């Protein structure tokens, strides 16, 4: 079994799916001849040609809007937005159309489309190249939000996202692109959307995280009897796995890199408060980014939840 990093795993998922189904096309900025600025689409232009790996003009709303038309026509577009900070130009298309077309047309038209975009801080990038604004998309019914944390899961989740009948925002943590290599099956396999995974079992505290913060959480729990959940799909999210774990441990820590206020941790926290408060032994804690604009790299290490901050929160929550 080959050892792949996340860039390679994503590339394999795209390639294998495109070989299987000729309705899948890729479009975005620099995705063709250049193979994508992170090389996630490397080699696909040569294999599938310019009609299936489409280098578009610099036009984020244009990429998403045309992908919607393609999906309505019967294709399965995989659109790439080069960095999450540039997706805002396409909000109107995502929220006003991609999310709603199944509803507005009573199922006559659908939008089976994936929007892939690199997200997150920690790679010493420029302004608007480190955004982690997943919560915006979780607030929009009609959209699914998927965040893989390892190469193996990236491939299986991307294949599921491509085959999903609804629009999926697929967030790829830039910090993880080349950080980890692991065994990734050749050939197709899927990991279901809407299901979290228990990365490690434990009894004293439940840590819930996703994307790149999962790895910091895993480092932080060393020495504790902690259960760690990788949410993987944020919308719709797996309440059952969370609640089962919380009922067992009675303590919860949520870790994400987005700002705290209205971050997706708030939704998880409220869900636990609604459905499992009587099982709690301690307040629900969140270790998150601060309520600030994500700073340039001189300060980003102070912004991102560190292993140390996560560890302090574990100490605090396990005092109860």
């Amino acid at each position, binding site marked *: 079994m080959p050892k792949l990093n996340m860039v390679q795993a994503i590339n394999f998922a795209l390639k294998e799916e495109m070989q299987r189904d000729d309705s899948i096309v890729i479009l975005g900025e620099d995705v063709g001849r250049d193979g994508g600025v992170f090389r996630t689409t490397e080699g696909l232009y040569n294999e599938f040609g310019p009609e299936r790996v*489409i280098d578009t003009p610099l036009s984020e709303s244009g990429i998403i809007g045309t992908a919607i038309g393609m999906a309505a026509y019967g294709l399965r577009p995989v659109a790439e937005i080069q960095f999450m900070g540039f997706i805002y130009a396409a909000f109107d298309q995502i929220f006003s*159309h991609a999310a709603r077309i199944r509803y507005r047309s009573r199922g006559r038209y659908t939008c089976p489309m994936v929007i892939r975009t690199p997200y997150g801080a920690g790679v010493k990038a420029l302004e608007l190249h480190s955004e982690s604004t997943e919560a915006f998309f979780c607030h929009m019914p009609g959209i699914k939000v998927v965040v893989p944390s390892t190469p193996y899961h990236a491939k299986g989740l991307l294949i599921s996202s491509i085959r999903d009948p609804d629009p999926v925002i697929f967030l790829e943590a830039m910090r993880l692109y080349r950080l980890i290599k692991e065994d990734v099956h050749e050939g197709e396999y899927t990991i279901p959307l809407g299901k979290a995974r228990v990365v490690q079992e434990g009894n004293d505290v439940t840590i819930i995280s996703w994307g790149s913060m999962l790895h910091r959480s895993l480092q932080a729990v060393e020495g504790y009897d902690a259960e760690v959940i990788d949410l993987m799909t944020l919308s719709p999210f797996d309440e059952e796995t969370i609640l089962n774990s919380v009922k067992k441990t009675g303590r919860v820590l949520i870790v994400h890199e987005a700002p705290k206020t209205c971050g997706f941790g708030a939704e998880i926290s409220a869900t636990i408060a609604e459905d499992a408060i009587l099982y709690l032994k301690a307040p629900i804690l969140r270790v998150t980014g601060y309520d600030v604009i994500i700073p340039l790299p001189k300060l980003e290490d102070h912004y991102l939840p560190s292993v140390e901050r996560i560890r302090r929160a574990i100490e605090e929550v396990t005092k109860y």
Partner: protein
Amino acid sequence: MTVNKSDAIFLIMAEKIIESFQVRRIEILDEKGDADESLMPALSDSDIRRIFELLILLRTFDQRALSLQREGRLGTYAPILGQEASQVGSAFALEKSDWIFPSYRESGVYITIGYPLHMLFQYWALDERGLKTPADFNIFPISIPVGTQVLHAVGAAMASKYRKDKTATVTYFGDGGTSKGDFHEGLNMAGVFKLPVIFICQNNQWAISMPRSKQSTSKTLAQKAYSYGIEGIQVDGNDVFAVYKATAYALQKARQGEGPTFIECVTYRIADHTTADDATRYRSKEEVEMWKAKDPIQRLKLFMEKKGLWTVQYQKEAEDKATSMIDEAVKTSESLEPPQPREMFTYIYEKLTPRQIKQLKDF
């Protein structure tokens, strides 16, 4: 650096003209009902009668929609009075397999292609089920945001080109829509990929209270197409023959792989923006009266009368037929069972989410 007048003249002399463009305008049928026979499109007498009957049907629909709205039987409605020729003339040229991406002021396009009339009333009565396009039509639900549908048309055209289908795609928008970013992104993409798509702009002179002159300082809207390497044509939008001819030409181009065309139909929104608007607040009665004299139906009637295709009796029959069709559609629309609250959940995702399943217990 300051440039004095003689230097400026010198600079102009030294420059070369590296690009120029011309905008064609097509006019065939004038207000007196006289047509330039040399320009007439290939339409049989029965086609012309059919077009006339559609124009009557549109107007009857529009008037009924306004009166139903006043009675509280429809929600806010966007009237089409004055724009009938732009809508019928263009949609009449389409094949059933062509794809259409309309804005919210395209009831006439829906009617021309034969979309079930009762579903139009159903939608304007604020029931989403009216937007469920029947399987044998390829028209997208109307776009409420202005101009965003331009990109969907470009995407469908990209897909049809990839699939090597002989389909053309048409999108409709107004003069206001040409100020939106998605319009420009769409035209740019269509030009770059040489797509089989037709952009039909109904320049009805007003975007709610903003006149055409304040929407853009371009002399024509058609010329915007040239920025994207696309042919732009202006037509008299109240001349159904001119609109038909330009659309038929653009469709032929699209089907032959000759790329996109932009058609500016110069017309006028005689009525208010919607039933929630009062146009007397921002435009003069004289201007409206001037445009009423350019009525698209009246001039076709005069043309047909001269050709022996129109009689008082024929007019009455066309109006009676339209009225009975509209009566029937309103009756059908108003006799439909109301939607069930559970239906709110049915079409968000293909499958209900676990949380939606819990929320459904409220109903």
